[in-house]
């Protein structure tokens, strides 16, 4: 499997480290809702198909990435810097950078 790093270009998957499901959203840190925290920490959908996930190019430029990958075919539809995704999310929610 090749992942096309936005900085380095196509690289072997061995250069990357998987960093987990990027589709979850973390509860408000002040929240004491145990069910919400339990779901955040333990529940996984086990998607068959398009899956949004975090990877790090640990053997190259060290950038954190958001990859849209099919868990059925390993086809990769998009690779973006996680920093850009986070900036976009902050802009959408209106909170300061």
């Amino acid at each position: 499997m090749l992942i096309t790093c936005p900085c380095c270009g196509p690289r072997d998957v061995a250069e990357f480290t998987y960093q987990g499901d990027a589709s979850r959203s973390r509860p408000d840190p002040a929240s004491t809702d145990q069910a919400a925290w339990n779901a955040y920490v333990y529940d996984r959908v086990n998607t068959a198909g398009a899956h949004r996930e975090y990877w790090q190019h640990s053997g190259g430029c060290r950038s954190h990435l958001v990859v849209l990958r099919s868990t059925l075919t390993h086809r990769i539809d998009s690779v973006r810097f996680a920093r850009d995704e986070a900036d976009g999310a902050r802009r959408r929610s209106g909170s300061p950078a």
Partner: protein
Amino acid sequence: MVEQVSPLGSAWTPGRHGNLAGEAGVVLSETRPGSIVQAAAFPGSEKAVMAAIAAATGLALPDGAGGGVATDTKAVFGIAPGRFLVIDQVEGLADRLKPGIPVETGAVTDLSHGRTAIRIAGPQAEWVLSKLFAIDFALAAFPLGAGRATQHHDVLAAIQRTGPDRFDLYVFRSLARSFWTMLVHAGEEVGCEVR
């Protein structure tokens, strides 16, 4: 001046290794730079760091990921977004870079004692490196002066093309002996000369 000690120690075995027919396919040597420095920019300060590198070294970095330039005594190339490896045969480069890169602009990290610089040159340099690293070493994909950050298993390496048939590799000093030995083994097939 204090004499530099090579991290290769007894792993440095000058002479011809492996295939003895014809000219050596690769020549391995150490370039022993006095300074190996990482200059990193905060987002938005990339141009300021590139200008500071140009002011301190006289090397003008081209735009674009992995771009670089090298002379006989100095080199610079991109290894990540906003991060550059700067090399000078003369010691003290970090101190020359710091005035141009204040803390609000970026960070200067002196890696001179943490990395070792290995040069692989010769008509089979691309072939030998391709055995170890999963990147394209062809001139069209890896142009002159350009840099790449990659790894061989867990040995991280920053590689710059400093000639049509020549690459300079920067690897962790603590792994220099095993990495060098592996390079010699990889080069034996085509004839490896250690200088």
